[in-house]
């Protein structure tokens, strides 16, 4: 079974007889040839319709206020926070692939890092929207920024919500810069290959006049490596800080020291599921099977399995500590989570995140593209349910039975969630059309390596 499982060679990661020229042409043609597949138009139309739904839902929210959602006391954090945590978690896989796998010299990241980073940006954009919508008075969000206001009031830096603001805005900024730096040499390629005047000028400006000087490349590589080194602790810190929004409070089910690592593992898990959800249709539609090979899918499935096992450990520990602590509120929280009114959510989440993904142990499953796609969707749903269980189910029955209540999402909750999916997809479609979805210069490096390794 494991005959060629041990060492990944460049030939595993790049099929076909590509040269520097043809691999460049193949990737840049998606952007420059102007022949856009029909499925792009269909997909973009659907995504765009959902963006309109989002705008409608958000406009109505601004007119009427957060009362249109299902939130109330005790469940004051509803879908907005669930969606925030879910989206920001999805973003983490992009940074993991581009930064951590770079530091670990995992070459298979090369053909997936660009669109995984784009996915990060768009997921963070979707995530960042939700706390603002949740504010109720979104026009005052700038109160979070420490600036010398005439009111003389300053933000409270001891609050996890302030940490969160700094973490997410830093994460968004660093991700944009990291992504852009990676794009500069490819912009130069597009500039030199574009035939239209407009495209030449646009890509020319974006490439900043990159000309591939050896001195520039050396500084570029050093800078890129250092940025990867900075992004690695950053990505770990972001979801840790998001988890502190919960863990610093005293709500049973939130007040837990396992939260930071458990959130980070969950973020990687859901992020890889989303990368697969995007990569599988993309390689099919644009015939990129030579560049994004079965080997890539297999490796991503393995990362997913490993992070999924860490998540499973988190669930087991939460349950164990609830019992072992002897704290009646913790014990009741866990009992209610499993057998209370939202019990079905918990069991569905266990099925989606723990039980079904065990199929990934089988090599045949990891290498079957349709099976992997379905599994990725299942995990996406499971991770959303996990956040729902953490946020809503913990809140709806806390210390005081007299203040217990139920949360029922309204049509506006669903419209905002669906709309954010549409926004994410629409941004991805635009990205695929306008920018190279695979790092071209890194593929040329892979070609060189393949030629060197060839006997």
């Amino acid at each position, binding site marked *: 079974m494991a005959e060629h499982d041990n060492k990944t060679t460049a030939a595993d990661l790049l099929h076909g007889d590509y040269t520097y020229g043809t691999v460049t042409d193949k990737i840049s043609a998606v952007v420059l040839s102007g022949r856009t597949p029909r499925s792009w138009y269909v997909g973009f139309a659907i995504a765009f319709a959902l963006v309109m739904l989002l705008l409608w839902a958000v406009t109505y929210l601004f007119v009427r206020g957060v009362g249109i959602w299902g939130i109330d006391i005790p469940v004051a954090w509803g879908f907005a926070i669930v969606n925030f945590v879910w989206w920001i978690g999805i973003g983490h896989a992009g940074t993991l692939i581009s930064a951590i796998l770079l530091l670990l010299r995992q070459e298979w990241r090369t053909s997936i890092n660009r669109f995984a980073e784009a996915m990060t940006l768009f997921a963070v954009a979707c995530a960042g929207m939700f706390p603002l919508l949740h504010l109720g008075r979104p026009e005052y969000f700038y109160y979070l920024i420490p600036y010398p206001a005439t009111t003389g009031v300053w933000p409270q830096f001891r609050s996890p919500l302030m940490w969160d603001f700094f973490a997410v805005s830093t994460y968004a900024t660093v991700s944009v810069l990291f992504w852009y730096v990676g794009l500069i040499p490819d912009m130069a390629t597009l500039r*030199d290959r574009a035939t239209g005047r407009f495209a030449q000028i646009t890509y020319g400006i974006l490439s*900043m006049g990159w000309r591939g000087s*050896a001195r520039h490349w050396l500084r*570029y590589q050093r800078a890129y490596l250092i940025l990867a080194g900075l992004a690695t*602790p950053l990505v770990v810190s972001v979801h840790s800080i998001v988890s502190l929004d919960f863990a610093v409070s005293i709500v049973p089910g939130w007040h837990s020291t396992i939260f930071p690592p458990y959130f980070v593992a969950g973020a990687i898990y859901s992020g890889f599921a989303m990368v697969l959800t995007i990569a599988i249709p993309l390689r099919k539609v644009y015939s990129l099977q030579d560049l994004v090979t079965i080997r890539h899918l297999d490796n991503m499935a393995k990362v997913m399995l490993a992070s999924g096992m860490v998540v499973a450990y988190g669930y087991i520990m939460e349950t164990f500590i609830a019992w072992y602590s002897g704290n009646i509120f913790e014990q009741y929280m866990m009992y209610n989570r499993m057998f209370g009114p939202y019990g079905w959510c918990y069991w569905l989440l266990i099925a989606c995140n723990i039980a079904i993904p065990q199929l990934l142990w089988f090599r045949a499953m990891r290498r079957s593209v349709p099976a992997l796609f379905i599994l990725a969707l299942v995990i996406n749903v499971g991770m959303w349910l996990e956040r729902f269980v953490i946020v809503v189910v913990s809140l709806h029955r806390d210390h005081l039975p007299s203040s217990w209540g139920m949360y029922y999402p309204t049509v506006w909750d669903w419209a905002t969630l669906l709309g954010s999916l549409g926004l994410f997809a629409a941004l991805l479609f635009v990205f695929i059309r306008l920018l190279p979805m695979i790092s071209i*210069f890194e593929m040329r*490096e892979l070609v060189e390596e393949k030629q060197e390794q060839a006997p």
Partner: protein
Amino acid sequence: MNTSDNNELYGLLAEFPGPEPLVQATAQVYAAGYRRLDAYAPMPVEGLAEAMNFRRTSMPLIVLIGGIIGGLSGYLLQYWVAVIEYPVNVGGRPLHSWPAFIPITFETTILLGTFAGVFGMLALNGLPRPHHPLFGVAQFKRASRDGFFLCVETSDRKFSLDQTRDLLTAAGAIEVIDVPR
């Protein structure tokens, strides 16, 4: 050595068939005493900058300084707000509650370090630079696809149109092109 000819030229651009020939030729031209030269490749090539004796960059130092400034300013901002400008007494707890300031200090360290890395890299590389004499050469478009080039500039003290051309040809160039200013 500067003749009127050289004043109209930026340099001589030689194309080589691949990354390894380019590294060898660059080392050869550097060994011949030329200093104002640069190699151009569509991807980072191992040993190419080293062949021109260009090994050290100040990138790590720049990022370190950026990170230190970021960390210090993040921490001092919080200290100043929480202790001096806007003290909030919560049940007599210390105003200088440093553990609570660590997350934001960490984030501003990363943020300023990244800014220093990105903008420092661009500044050292002299980018953005929309135009460059090399862009006037039609063949140079391939430097971002599959072309491997070495350019010796006329400003080099050793530059001589004929001798430099011969040296580049002897080093294995497929073609040597005049680069107008």
